[in-house]
């Protein structure tokens, strides 16, 4: 049996330093169950009271050839005592289940960080597949790091022997063995994982038992290694978070829950039309299980049918919702124009991914901002809001529903692949604290006769459901006459209607105040972000401020229309930096709207920003 390597040291800085946070990355073949392992480790971390953020990073191929570099699936978690808003820059610990996983991930590992590797997978064949000429575990090439290498495969097989599984099935328990070791490493309870395994394999108790045995064996191995290698316990300070009930939530879950909550607050049934696409499908999956909340889900034949059916449902009195990612959003463009013209409520969720075209389906990007704000034919104004984190997506979804029904307009909610997949702890909201915005349909002929395009104080037209007596009328995509809604092609009418549609949407900004997330309302530098860059910007600004720099963080939820005080706020800073995962789209919007010299910081690698990258840009601007 293999034993732990003797040369192990603390992977964290400073011998007795208290780590503020630890970053662990699980990496393996896409068939090794790394996302599951990561997910369960996340749960145990949340239960241990640490704040955390995760970053699942998996290949686009469902079943990539085993052992290959492009088949590597990884899951990173950052947890600790301070408020954690990113998945962390460089991992402290890398768990590499095969040579390919080691090769593709070790470059990110902190100097002095710990590698845990399964020697059982470092066969000649796998080394060739990973394009290693020599075994890196033996040739000294990993000297910069600490190495703990032993035969996890053999140990797993040994531990599940009593269950008589086939070799392949038995090896599948490797991830649980590894998880057991990781749980031991951080002194975590195995109990919730055991419960989860029992529930997951309720129909195959022998599989559950084998996995539990592997989990226990991995944990026990840690205990034995503890004897072989001196171990010191490190005290990680508590995360100072608000008291209350917490759960973990992914962006896709939070959006689904927020949409359900939004429809309930509007007192409407919800109709969701979708067509599968990564990373948006998860929302369709979640909502399909919530029928008791008055949710109807419809898997349409394409994205156009998905949005068109949602528009039809809104017309008939439901809250129509559709969701997709860049390529599908492009297909929905014409129908968004129809919703704008017919002034029907609609929520369009865009989980952005790397583009153009099919682009990087499983990687994250913020490059659909132009598409969201400008990407339709005609003068077609549409509100756009962006979620900053998985938990924030809940409130953003409710906000999208509110705007849609109060202003009779389609609304786009932007998230991205990172937010959709990542999990973070979420303080369960008190639903009673949300103000309802129950919809009033027009149900009688108003004084002066029926005018389907009459307007209220928000410039919204009445919502009239088919089936209502005496209010029969026709709507469509042809230009509408002011008030009556009849077809009207006259120049003056088109001018008036275009301005009305514009002013209605601009009116949403009334009363929207932009606050400063961190720092002061004036100063030398404002870092202005939107969407999922919140975490790295926040941390970078915090670090820079600790060093004494005059820098503030402004994070924008309402992308269109922008908050009414934003121009004034931005004018109070000498410089503006806009980090974005695109080539500078929001920077251009800010320049256009406020004639400010917003400077871009762009990353288009399909990976989230590192804190250090933003910190360096801040220091560069203040130097």
């Amino acid at each position, binding site marked *: 049996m293999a034993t732990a390597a*003797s040369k*192990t040291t*603390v992977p964290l800085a400073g011998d007795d330093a208290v*780590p503020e946070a630890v970053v662990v990355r699980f990496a393996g073949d896409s068939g090794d169950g790394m996302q599951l392992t990561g997910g369960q480790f996340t749960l145990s971390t*949340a239960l241990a*009271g*640490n704040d955390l953020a995760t970053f699942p990073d998996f290949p686009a191929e469902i079943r990539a050839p085993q052992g290959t570099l492009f088949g590597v699936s990884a899951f990173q978690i950052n947890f600790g005592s301070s408020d954690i808003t990113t998945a962390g820059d460089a991992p402290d610990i890398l768990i590499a289940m095969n040579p390919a996983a080691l090769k593709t991930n070790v470059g990110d590992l902190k100097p002095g960080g710990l590698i845990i590797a399964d020697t059982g997978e470092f066969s000649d064949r796998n080394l060739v597949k990973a394009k290693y000429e020599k075994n890196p575990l033996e040739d000294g090439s990993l000297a910069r790091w600490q190495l703990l290498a032993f035969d996890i495969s053999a140990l797993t097989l040994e531990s599940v022997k009593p269950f008589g599984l086939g070799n392949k099935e038995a090896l599948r328990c490797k991830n649980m063995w590894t998880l057991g070791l990781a749980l031991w*490493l*951080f*002194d975590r309870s195995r109990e*919730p994982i055991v*419960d989860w395994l029992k529930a997951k394999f309720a129909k195959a108790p022998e599989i559950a038992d084998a996995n539990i045995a592997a989990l226990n064996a991995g944990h026990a191995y840690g205990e034995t290694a503890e004897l072989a*290698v001196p*171990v010191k*316990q*490190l*005290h*990680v300070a*508590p*995360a*100072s978070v608000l*008291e209350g*009930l*917490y*759960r973990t939530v992914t962006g896709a879950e939070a959006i689904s829950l927020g949409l359900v*909550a939004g429809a*309930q607050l509007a007192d409407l049934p919800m*109709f969701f039309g979708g067509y599968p696409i990564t990373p948006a499908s998860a929302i369709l999956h979640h909502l399909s299980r919530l*029928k*008791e*909340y*008055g949710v109807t889900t*419809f898997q*349409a*034949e394409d994205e156009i049918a998905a949005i*068109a*059916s*949602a528009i*039809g449902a*809104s*017309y*008939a009195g*439901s809250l129509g919702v559709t969701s997709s990612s860049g390529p599908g959003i492009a297909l929905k463009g*014409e*129908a968004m*124009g*129809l919703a704008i013209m*017919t002034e029907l409520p609609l929520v369009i969720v865009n989980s952005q991914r790397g583009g153009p075209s099919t682009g990087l389906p499983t990687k994250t990007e913020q490059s659909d901002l132009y598409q969201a704000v400008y990407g339709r034919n005609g003068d077609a104004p549409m509100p756009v809001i962006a979620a900053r984190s998985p938990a924030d997506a*809940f409130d953003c979804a409710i906000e999208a529903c509110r705007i849609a029904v109060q202003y009779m307009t389609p609304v786009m909610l932007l998230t991205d692949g990172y937010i959709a997949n990542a999990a973070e702890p979420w303080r*369960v909201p008190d639903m009673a604290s949300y103000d309802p915005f129950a919809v009033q349909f027009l149900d009688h002929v108003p004084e002066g006769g029926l005018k389907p395009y009459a307007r209220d104080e928000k410039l919204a037209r009445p919502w009239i459901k*088919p*089936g209502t*007596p005496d*209010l*029969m*009328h*026709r*709507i*469509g*995509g042809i230009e509408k006459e002011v008030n009556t809604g009849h077809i009207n092609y006259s120049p003056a009418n088109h001018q008036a209607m275009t301005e009305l549609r514009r002013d209605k949407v601009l009116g949403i900004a009334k009363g929207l105040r932009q606050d400063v997330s961190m720092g002061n309302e004036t100063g030398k530098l404002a870092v202005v972000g939107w969407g999922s860059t919140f975490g790295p910007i926040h941390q970078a600004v915090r670090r820079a401020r600790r060093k004494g720099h005059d820098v503030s963080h402004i994070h924008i939820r309402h992308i269109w229309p922008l908050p009414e005080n934003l121009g004034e706020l931005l004018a109070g800073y000498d410089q503006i930096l806009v980090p974005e995962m695109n080539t500078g789209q929001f920077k251009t919007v800010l320049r256009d709207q406020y004639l400010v010299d917003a400077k871009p910081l762009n990353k288009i690698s399909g990976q989230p920003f590192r804190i250090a990258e933003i910190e360096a840009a801040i220091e560069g601007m203040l130097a």
Partner: protein
Amino acid sequence: MNDMTTLTKPRVETVLKDWETDQEVRWCPGCGDYAILKAVQRTLPQIGADPKNAVFVSGIGCSSRFPYYVESYGFHTIHGRAPAVATGVKLANPELDVWIVTGDGDGLSIGGNHTMHILRRNLDCQILLFNNEIYGLTKGQYSPTSREGTRTPSSPGGSVDHPAKPCAFALGSGARFIARAYDVSRQLPAVLAAAYNHKGAAFVEIFQNCIVYNKDVFADFTEKKNADEGQLWLEQGKPMLFSKGTKGIALDREALTLKVVEVVDGDWQSAGVIVHDVTNRSVAHMLVEMPFGLFPMALGVIYDAPAPSFEQAVVEQNAKLAAGKTADLQKLVSQGQTWTVSAGPATDAARRNTAVRDIPAWIAWARLIRPS
């Protein structure tokens, strides 16, 4: 066929005038669309339709202007997408009578995909496809139903593509109701009523004369002088006779195709003429594939065999999945593995509770491997 719907939908008494709007009709004088509009407005009172529950959904094209002229709810959507919009309307409110009005370009070219899927899903609605074998609204380009050799501005040398057959396409897509008529045919209201009374997607192809860009392309069977030889009106339980009863349609048992047979002295039985059975799908396939010229044009209700409709299945499944569950938002957001952050240490009992765990916020341990 359709006792369920006729029972649940109360008849409403209206007259033709009640279905007319004050909008100026904008089709070319003499366009076949006028006749179809009148036929629909005549049918609606006959079937007892309720103006407040009728929703006409259309795409884009001359034909798709239709909803503006019917005093009911109407939605003139975008090119080709009427079936998708209609699906949302019907799923949101299954009580509504949904009529889709589309053209050969709208329904079979840009919207062919949606037409296929609404038919296979069998959404309860009427689909009226006005086939004028041309793109009327865009000024006369050839369409997917134009015959080979059609000369238009975009095909000055004559079109070379093979035309689609709307009814064959619909049957192939799984339609449970297929009917055919032409704009000025006397029988159009009866065909529309049959479509209305069919629960599920009812597909009606209506040959429509575009007098500006494709004048008289259907004259070979619609003109009075050609009607006897050119039209085969199908009626449930009646023999398939035409040409004043002197000809009929029989099965060529050798070739397994249809054939035209002479009927002498009204003795259609001995001529082997087929009795129309609207539920016979195989014969329906053969009827819609009959090459015109060698055969007359099959008109009337070709196929009518109801099956469970989509919105009904969705409603039933939603009810089943929701049964016994209550909508409690607070419970919903609190689902999954939760834990409570509190000021003090946790009790062992709380720790063991898998639903809610009390984790002391003041302490967390990480155990790390240290050098010897």
